[in-house]
């Protein structure tokens, strides 16, 4: 390089930094840059149409996908008549509340202590078929064989009433998760680990003090540890308390390439309890057995019993006391409010195309030089474009999801699918979150457009990083690998749509196709935001470094 050219370059640098300084004057405010980009965006008819098409496609596919079951019940073969009567828990969530209860009323404060010496399970044999199954009894107890069900549970329970969906607190031994204290369906605390057996019995104690129920466990009946306390607001003075047993649907997942086949069948838990000690005012003299939630078309085997001999009680039941989760292998054929938003994949591709072109089009026509002459702060140009594209995408996404969700939900209900209820806050998070996810994906596509400068490359990159990982995880990869893909790639952003949380105390055949993601909603959304942020920073650096 000659000395002359060095001088020229230095002069050029000086001029550029001078122009950057003038740019910071109020004349070129960020608002004006945004306005300029907004005018550019709205004046290209194709881009506006693209966003409208994105919203329409999302709506169309969402509602089509939501309503496609064809079941009918009753004399009119209506879908609505098929809707299962799912109990609703104290927190407003759909719950499974089906177990065998051996009860006595407890008036006022008191406590119940038992020793559990055994918990065994029967599982249905060969009841499963490939595909989603699990609607009620399939085999009677006679055809079942011994097995292990990790979340089979038996112990003692204090419940407000025998109506399914009542407030309760229970302390239990489980098939594979040690002693647990659970209350009001969604709360779960671990106690002593290990399996229960005659050689290693477990003592359980529940004490009631007003609305507060405390659970204690012990391995020897002498040293007691507090497992947890539950506050059940509005608990009546007289509650039902006693031993119980239940056992959920047993899912065996057989993984193979391209998905997994699930064998599901009911299971039954039988427990033996003795050394039963009651304190407080127990007005009844004898124990009463009840198949809670167990009449007619019940979840589980529908068979439950109890036997008394000496001071010991044998109790056997089937079902679960837990929240209902979506997907095959749950007790009810259920669906979620986010199911009608599936069309967002289609809309997302249209949005990504428009957003990427929003930047790359400037390079194709050389307009970028005019743009940068007008706004020498290149970062502002990038930011303004990202904001405008994300804003348009957010609007399109919000309109589409706000219409698709209620339409789809009512269509699904008319077809006999039980839509798992969620709070209004969750619903807003799902709808607004879906729009926000599309907006962040649009910003990511703008950044890719600035990095790659070619429409085809930018669009491909955006689709490959956002949509393809999702496709791989629902259709190609085994579950563990798929979960890592949905944690680490921008496709994690779809987690924002999950309305029913993952409950560790429910074994479900969870998959993204049934609306279950490995990350919590906001964490998954954060992963997508992180990718967008990194891409935008990289784009800003390259934009400043490179000649336009």
């Amino acid at each position, binding site marked *: 390089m000659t000395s002359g050219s060095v001088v020229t370059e230095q002069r050029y640098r000086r001029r550029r930094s001078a122009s950057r300084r003038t740019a910071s004057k109020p004349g070129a405010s960020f608002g004006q840059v945004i306005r300029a980009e907004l005018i550019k965006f709205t004046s290209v008819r*194709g881009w506006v149409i693209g966003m409208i098409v994105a919203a329409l496609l999302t709506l169309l*596919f969402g509602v089509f*996908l939501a309503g*496609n*079951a*064809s079941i009918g019940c009753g004399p009119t073969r209506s879908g609505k008549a098929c809707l299962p009567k799912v109990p609703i828990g104290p927190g407003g969530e759909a719950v499974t509340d089906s177990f065998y209860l051996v009860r006595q009323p407890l008036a006022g404060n008191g406590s119940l202590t038992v020793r559990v010496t055994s918990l065994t399970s029967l599982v249905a044999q060969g009841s499963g078929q490939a595909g989603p199954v699990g609607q009620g009894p399939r085999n009677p107890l006679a055809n079942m064989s011994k097995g292990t069900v990790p979340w089979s549970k038996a112990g003692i329970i204090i419940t407000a009433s025998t109506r399914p969906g009542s407030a309760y607190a229970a302390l239990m031994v489980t098939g594979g998760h040690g002693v647990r204290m659970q209350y009001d369906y969604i709360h779960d605390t671990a106690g002593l680990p290990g399996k229960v057996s005659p050689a290693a019995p477990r003592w359980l104690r529940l004490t009631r003090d007003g609305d507060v129920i405390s659970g204690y466990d012990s391995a020897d009946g002498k040293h007691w540890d507090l497992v947890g306390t539950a506050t059940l607001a509005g608990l009546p003075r007289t509650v039902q308390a006693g031993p119980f047993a239940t056992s959920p649907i047993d899912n065996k997942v*057989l*993984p*193979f*390439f*391209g998905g997994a086949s699930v064998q599901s069948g009911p299971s039954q838990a039988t427990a033996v309890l003795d050394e039963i000690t009651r304190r407080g005012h127990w007005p009844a003299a004898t124990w009463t057995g009840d198949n809670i939630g167990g009449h007619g078309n019940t979840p589980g085997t529908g068979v439950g019993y109890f036997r008394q001999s000496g001071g010991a009680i044998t109790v056997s039941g089937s079902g679960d006391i837990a929240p209902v989760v979506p997907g095959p292998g749950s007790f009810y054929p259920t669906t979620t409010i986010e*199911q009608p938003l*599936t069309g967002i*994949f*289609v809309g997302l*591709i*249209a949005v*990504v*195309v428009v957003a*990427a*072109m929003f930047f*790359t089009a400037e390079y*194709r026509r050389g307009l970028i030089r005019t743009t940068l002459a007008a706004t020498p702060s290149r970062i502002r140009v990038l930011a303004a474009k990202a904001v405008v594209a994300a804003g348009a995408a957010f609007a399109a996404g919000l309109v589409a999801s706000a219409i698709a969700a209620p339409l789809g939900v009512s269509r699904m209900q008319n077809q006999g699918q039980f839509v798992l209820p969620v709070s209004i806050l969750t619903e807003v998070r799902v709808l607004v979150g879906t729009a926000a996810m599309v907006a962040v994906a649009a910003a990511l596509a703008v950044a890719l457009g600035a990095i790659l400068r*070619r*429409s*085809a*490359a*930018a*669009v*491909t990159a955006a*689709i*490959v990083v956002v*949509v*393809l990982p*999702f*496709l*791989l995880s*629902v*259709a*190609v*990869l*085994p579950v*563990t*690998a798929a979960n*890592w893909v949905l944690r680490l790639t921008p496709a994690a952003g779809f987690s924002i749509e999950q309305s029913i949380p993952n409950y560790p105390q429910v074994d479900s055949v969870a998959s993204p*196709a049934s609306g279950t993601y490995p990350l919590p909603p906001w964490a998954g959304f954060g992963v997508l935001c992180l990718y967008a942020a990194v891409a935008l920073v990289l784009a800003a650096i390259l934009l400043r470094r490179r000649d336009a």
Partner: protein
Amino acid sequence: MDALRAEWLKLRTVSSSAWLLAGMVALTVGVGATVMTANRCPAGTTCLEDTTKLSLSGVQFGQAVVAVLAVLPLCNEYSTGMIRVTLAAIPRRPAVLAAKTAIVGGLVLAAGTVAILGSLLAARLILPGHGFDAADGFRPLSLADSATLRAAAGSVLYLALVALLSSGIAALVRDSAVTVGVVLGVLYLFPVIAAFVGNPVWHRRIERYSPMAGLNIQATTGLKALAIGPWAGLGVLAIWATAALLAGGLALSRRDA
């Protein structure tokens, strides 16, 4: 013939073509190897994996690059205005599309062969170490096995058909970004939608009649459970590609450039 030579010259002298071809091979083999590493057959369990299909899963990614490669020769001409020069030199417009498609298709056939052979080689190196060995009834993948040969050759054809489909859509749409969006949408959205459709009738319809049916050519086990047979599936994709090329050719002939 002149049209072919002209198109070959154009494609050869754009550096992106070579990069895209190399990228396609790298992505196909790389993703295939990653997916194989993620799968494991624990000792003492029955594994139902279709190892041939597993080893060729990189095609899912490779086809995205093929789409870009096949879209650019035509769309770039529209964005620069070069198309007017091309059509002035070769007034028979369908010949232009045919020549571009033939060149791209040929290149994809060649690069696809390399990618598929690379994937199978990776499978021979990776799979036995992940429990897919003779003890579980898995033999090392070999082209001497007729099903594997069909899957391998079919995958190469699949990639070439994706190139044809992309080329046809490019002639219809003309803008590279929108074309790539449409092609990738057609390729990727149907499987995603199928995963969500609960209605078995529609699920089966999508699996049978969408371009994704072409990937059934990779299946070597459980053929009876497929919604559509391997060759029939590839035929479905061929119909999509033919339809796209016909529509593209017609659009090219009728419209002003």
